[in-house]
């Protein structure tokens, strides 16, 4: 079975539940070993579904962070902020699961939300939020290029002494672009009947697949082990 086909087997509800379990692990686990075990499991899962490069990157980042936290911080080496390391350590598990969630078709996630008795307005906000992530990452790339041409990213000195100015350069065009895209998106949604208040069904199945059940059972077992 190809990686793409495997990924297609993952349903929206499966991905969301996996992310939820990952959050639980991050909140409740105290043991370094159990935490590491879950990271390895997620890394395996990412690799299995075809994201080998990302899997390796996450594991390397995780190993480095944990090593620094355990070995260097107690010795008083503070080159990297301990708070930043702590944050990476805490967030890496949910981020890995969320990464998978954003790699499945957004229609699948929307189908899950639609099935739930969520109010229409909140649903619409969620839909647009999911829709905006690729837009924003694309926009940031073009903005960075434009900044390079103008020398606004210029010297490292400039960025270091005026970090806020640099952020402003990115944020201002990003906001204007987002307002414009948001407006056009909303118009495109309305003419396609998004305001219909009636009951809606979806193109995607909201049932769990076998792949989901296997992944979730293993994750749940690991979570229980982690908490005990």
């Amino acid at each position: 079975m190809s990686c793409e086909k495997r990924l297609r087997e993952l349903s929206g509800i499966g991905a969301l539940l996996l992310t939820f379990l990952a959050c639980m692990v991050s909140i409740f686990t105290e043991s370094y070993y159990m935490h590491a075990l879950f990271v390895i499991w997620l890394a395996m899962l990412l690799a299995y579904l075809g994201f080998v490069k990302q899997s390796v990157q996450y594991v390397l980042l995780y190993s480095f962070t944990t090593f620094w936290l355990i070995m260097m911080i107690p010795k008083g080496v503070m080159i990297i902020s301990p708070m930043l390391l702590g944050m990476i350590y805490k967030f890496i598990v949910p981020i890995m699961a969320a990464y998978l969630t954003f790699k499945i078709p957004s229609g699948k996630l929307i189908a899950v939300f639609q099935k739930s008795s969520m109010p229409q307005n909140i649903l619409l906000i969620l839909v647009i939020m999911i829709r905006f992530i690729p837009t924003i990452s694309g926009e940031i790339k073009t903005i960075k290029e434009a900044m390079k041409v103008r020398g606004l990213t210029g010297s490292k000195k400039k960025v270091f002494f005026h970090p806020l100015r640099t952020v402003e350069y990115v944020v201002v065009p990003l906001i204007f672009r987002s307002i414009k895209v948001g407006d056009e998106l909303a118009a495109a949604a309305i003419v396609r009947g998004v305001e219909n208040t009636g009951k809606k069904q979806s193109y995607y199945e909201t049932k769990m697949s076998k792949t989901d059940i296997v992944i979730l059972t293993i994750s749940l077992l690991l979570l229980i082990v982690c908490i005990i």
Partner: protein
Amino acid sequence: MKSEVKIHHVSYSYNKNEMQLNDINLNILQGECIAIIGASGCGKSTLTRVINGLIPSFFQGELSGKTFIKEKDIHQLPSWEIGKMIGNVFQDPRSQFFSNEVAGEIAFGCENMGLTHSEIIKRVNQTVKEMGIEDLLNTSIYSLSYGMRQKVAICSAKAMEPDVYVFDEPSANLDLSATYLLADLIKRLKNSGKTSIIAEHRLFYLRGIADRYIFMENGKIIKEYSSNEIQEQKSEALNKKGLRSLRFEDISIPNTDLSGITSPHPISVTGLSKDFKNHQLLKNITFQYDNNEIIALVGANGVGKSTLGKVFAGLMKESSGEILVDGNSKKYKQRIGKIWYIPQDLDSQLFGEDLIDELTTGLDNPDKNIDKAEDILRKLGLIELKNKHPATLSGGQKQRLVLGVAMMRNAPMIILDEPTSGLDFNSMEKVRVLIKEQQKNGTKFLIISHDIEFIARTCNRILKLDDGEITEDYYLENIQDLLKSMNAKEVEKWMC
């Protein structure tokens, strides 16, 4: 024939001072294809919004008069009921999609109509089969070209099975072959008996498709042309109305004498290559500026035009080869700011709070350069707007402003990537005049474009890129040569 859309004494304004639409009357018959034409700001887009019901529910303002579709007053209907009758395709292929993959996008409208799961699947499969894109169902929309995205947009409207289609400048971001693909799709809708309404200022692709051309100015319908009557219009007459030419053959190439123009900074490229992931994007590119000629870089989508522009400007590092400025080899970082690259997306390159700030931002002494900035704004014809926020300008004004930023830095060479997408004739002319002036002052230009009319009127020399290689390099003297380089004839023939 039955009346499909009827607009009866419709007027609209969103601020009371100015009328965006002024007493519009229009009767569109079933199966007709209508082009609403006119310069930017004439009210053609506004009229499409009245027809699809976005005015007054989404765009507020004062609306009077009545609009009927199949004899139903649409302003009495909720938005989703109008959506079932009218399919929409908008201008920007980046901002009309909801899903990240094709299947979900086509299903979106059907889901909102309240169809069952099995009915939705049936409609999606049927639509992609009819339009011949079955193999794209699971593809990410962001990986598609703009032309294919417009096809997906038509599919997602079609899946809802409306009888009327409304297009708002659908060709604005498309290259030539994608525009003809769009024309083919509109033709197919027409042949299956659907009614189409297209707001446009580019007319060439609608030749032989549109039955009537409604010409608008200042929110009013000025004149109506039949398909035959518009054929008789000379390009010059159309251009005066702010419209683009109907036939490329009519476009005259201005005689420019390059000998009197100074060329202070010689620039040349030798053996430039760029590899990316085992693939050669650019292969052994070699050329030099003979004088201060304006070079157009043409070629199909994805042959490496933008990559060449970015490598040239130092935004990407070359794999091998050399670029000489003033006889000195310049590494990629040294080229930044000397060779100025202006990308297609204008919104993401405006950083200032007002126009003066826009021109001076990033300079070492912004305050000392205000006089110079005002001078440049005068040249750009934007001095009256100097206190406005750059994001509030129109497309043509923004394009001139970003050129002004390059002028402010005295960049010896400027690369423009698709500078005229979405611009009507008048805005295009203003950009052209500005470029010509700068050419006389010694700036070199490389213009990446698929806009035949703009290239013919502006550029002196053509470089054609095909699969990363320069395959043609000549001075433009004859419109036929250019049409051949752009494959205009072949695409058109293939259409018929």
